[in-house]
């Protein structure tokens, strides 16, 4: 079993306050980009080199006729075997660093040698983005600078409801398992998304595709 760190993102506890989205920008010194209102609460519309954490909003009507509004605090999953590392690595051997202690997957400046299309194609969750000017790839770092100094990731720290939980992978895997079991009593479709493949494990209570098309690999 893989060691290192993990994050549980329990969407059943998320109120989409977007504290995580803003805290990510604050800690990482990322700018607020110019956006437009296009008819949704989701903004910016997508991840970018300036937005590594994005709360996605998805709404509709359930089978019982009642509305739903699902929130998906999207970010890099920090795969145990990250395909982006292979993809970027083919062009820039030091373009991706996998931190041994934590398991965090981090892009370096050398990643700019890799082509955008291929790297995005490689990621089943559609996470990597390229800075338009520097051509460097960018995404969540699991706050490697923080977690290497006994602090929890900025997004996790900002979460008011406990939807985001950070810890040792073993502990998080246990928490995910028991939470899913508990949720299944009320929501038969409750599940963890790709728990054995990723470090950032989402829990959903309905079909994951209803949350976000790239929610699950």
């Amino acid at each position, binding site marked *: 079993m893989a060691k290192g760190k993990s994050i549980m993102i329990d969407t059943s*506890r998320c*109120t*989409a*306050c*977007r*504290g995580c*989205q*803003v805290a990510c*920008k*604050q800690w990482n010194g990322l*700018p*607020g*980009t*110019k*956006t*437009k*209102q*296009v*008819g*949704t*609460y989701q*903004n*910016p519309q997508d991840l970018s080199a300036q937005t590594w954490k994005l709360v996605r909003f998805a*709404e*509709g*009507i359930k089978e019982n006729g*009642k*509305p*739903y*509004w*699902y*929130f998906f605090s999207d970010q890099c999953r920090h795969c145990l075997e990250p395909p982006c590392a292979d993809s970027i690595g083919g062009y820039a051997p030091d373009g991706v660093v996998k931190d041994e202690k934590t398991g965090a997957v981090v892009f370096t400046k050398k990643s700019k040698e890799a082509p955008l299309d291929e790297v995005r194609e490689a990621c089943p969750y559609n996470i990597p983005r390229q800075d338009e000017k520097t051509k460097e790839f960018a995404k969540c770092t699991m706050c490697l600078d923080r977690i290497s100094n006994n602090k929890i990731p900025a997004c996790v720290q900002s979460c*008011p*409801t*406990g939807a985001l939980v950070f810890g040792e992978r073993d502990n998080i895997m246990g928490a995910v398992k028991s939470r899913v079991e508990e949720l299944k009593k009320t929501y038969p479709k409750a599940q963890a998304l790709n728990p054995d493949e990723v470090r950032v494990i989402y829990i959903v209570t309905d079909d994951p595709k209803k949350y976000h098309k790239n929610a699950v690999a």
Partner: protein
Amino acid sequence: MTNHYIDIRNADVILIMGSNAAEMHPISFKWVLRARETRGAKIIHVDPRFTRTSAQADYYVPLRSGTDIAFLGGMIKYILDNKKYFEEYVRDYTNASFIIDDKFSFNDGLFSGYDPATRKYDKSTWTIKLDDKGIPQKDPTFENPRCVLQMLKAHYSRYDLEKVSSITGTPVEDLKTVYELYASTGVRDKAGTELYALGWTQHTVGVQNIRAMAIIQLLLGNMGIAGGGINALRGEPNVQGSTDQAILSHILPGYLKAPVASLATLEEYLKKNTPKTNEPQSANWYQNTPKYMVSLLKAWYGDKATKENDFGYAYVPKLDDGQDATLLNMIDKMYEGKVKGFTCIGQDPACSLPNANKVREAFTKLDWMVHMNIFDNETASFWKGPGMNPKKIKTEVFLIPVAANMEKEGSMSNSGRMLQWKYVAEKPPGDALSTGDVLIRLMAKLKDMYKKNKGTFPDPILNVVYNYTDQKGMFDATAVAKVMNGYFLEDVTIGDKTYKKGQCVPGFANLQADGKTSCGIWIHSGSFTADGTNLIARRKKDDPTGLGLYPEWAWVWPVNRRILYNRASVDKDGQPFDPSRAILKWVDGKWVGDVPDGPWPPLSDKEKGKLPFIMKPDGVASLFGPGLVEGPFPEHYEPLEGPLSKNLMSSQLSNPAMKIFQKKCDVYSGCDPNFPFVCTTYSSTEHWCTGAETRWQSWLTEAQPEAYVEISKELAELRGIKNGEKVRVQSPRGKVECVAMVTTRFRPFKIGGNTVHQVGMTFNYGWLFPKDCGDSANLLTPTAGDANTMTPEYKAFMVNVTKV
């Protein structure tokens, strides 16, 4: 809140109605979800719109804006018809058994005593019958048809499921679900809490919305218990504190009544405002009013407040009799040109007040405006706003930069009445001072001017104590907090204890009416110990009851009581109704748990025991409450602007006691095909109020960049509007262009057999910044307010929505 944030976790059923708690009070949801996870609590959200709160609720139930009393009246009927009330509690702790005056009546939407010419009630028949000792007549068997419980039942007999559904648009099945679930808490071992906010207050029947819920909580025995209560989620960060400190025109600090002109002497004021009772077991706490008022005057005027000069009572400004000096009336007078100067601190009324065109026009009639804020906003810059010609505006505006809250030391009071101390994180930039420092300097200048130039009545200014500075001459928050707490001004012996002159008063029970104590706000008394320790700043995390009271974390008014009316959580012998939620218990002759509502023994001690609702002269809670202007029982009236030409409940369409404003810009529409859609307004998680502070924050404007109107798919189809298109929203008073958000979270209502559409807008935007974010939704809202408080009706009015 009667309870506090952490206490939400103790509830079995959480009714969120009149609030979008998840979005507006994100931390509250930590405890809402905790209740669900730890005790299987059910969460109900009743709201016109499916919000981020609804997304987390077990039951989302829609209702049309402005119909909460119909909804809650139906619940009262359900509770009474099905005997779901907590009988022992209702009998002993409320006025359910009291006999109502024979002449009191209710007929077709009006209570006895109404005068349509003045739109006021003569309340002389809204009374309880007294026996020959002056004590309320009672029938504890509830058989007397004139007893409060029977009259309550008769009043709400009209609120049947079908009638309620036809008014609210809530499906009958949903009504049943909520009524059954919530009424299930009317037993000893269940607790139901209610969370509300501006969704209840911002109506022409706002106070009655809350009273209707108070009646339900009393019937179910949910007041005074852990996991219960009526919980107003107050605006962050310090709205509770500003109310306590009387940033309102009708009160003095600590909710003492504001003096009026006809009460010329202190004696007259105290006689009028100190309630009496003949009920032997009533504590009638407000009998202490003279102690609080005299101590307040001593805090204000110090040595210049003497017995001989009525402790300076003559210095206190008086309202004219019957004067309503609330914001809507102030703007109305400003619009008439009767107000010359305006000091505005930390607000943006050009965007936050209703009928913003009227407000902005009113500003042009001023000679001067002083504006203190951390940013420029639409109020300070009104003279260069849309449609304004700066050359023709005489108003001189002074924009004074002041410190932001993290640049100031002092206390903040949260919704749970908890005062917490904070420290300066960063010094204010540039020339900015704290508002306290600005006011210190302003008062010093005024004193100087009055000293030099005399003036008609200089004494109130010259004699006011305003020495709240440290050694460097800067505003000293601790000094002010101590004045709020109060001092002994002479050596005083109380019981077997003697306090020295200069010591802090350790609780309001020690305040005196003879001038020997001072106290700036009696409800804060006890926040310092006698030796001057600041309890507001303490941070101890012990929780002896295990119920989340954390009695040594900061300090809660009054006297660190965490749950108000907690004597109602125990039976007559002082034993908790629910031992698993025992916040209070009488053990071996003393109270254990929370700070009890007074030191007296339990009620069964006929000599010394007291009734639980100590602030009421009768000692019990008022199911029949004659204090409000539009009636002793809440009654459904339509909003001032609504989709119906007739109230389905009575012939009285809207609140008979509310003020109707008459200026030429005060135009209203009701049941008008030109404005066919119900509109409501609200904030969002990402912005604070008008956005005057948050729109400058790029991470927040990135998340919520510009004004939008949420409309249903059905309405979008009707109007040919696509998601994301620009639309115009128009009311009789103004129009706003914004983006259409077409959503399944708004759905049409069936009202009285017809389809009624509702839309909603945020009031987070204004023309100043960012340039293209859209102007205020309050250009649309009507100048109309609650009949008791004048809180504007932002939540229900009529608009049209069309493509641009």
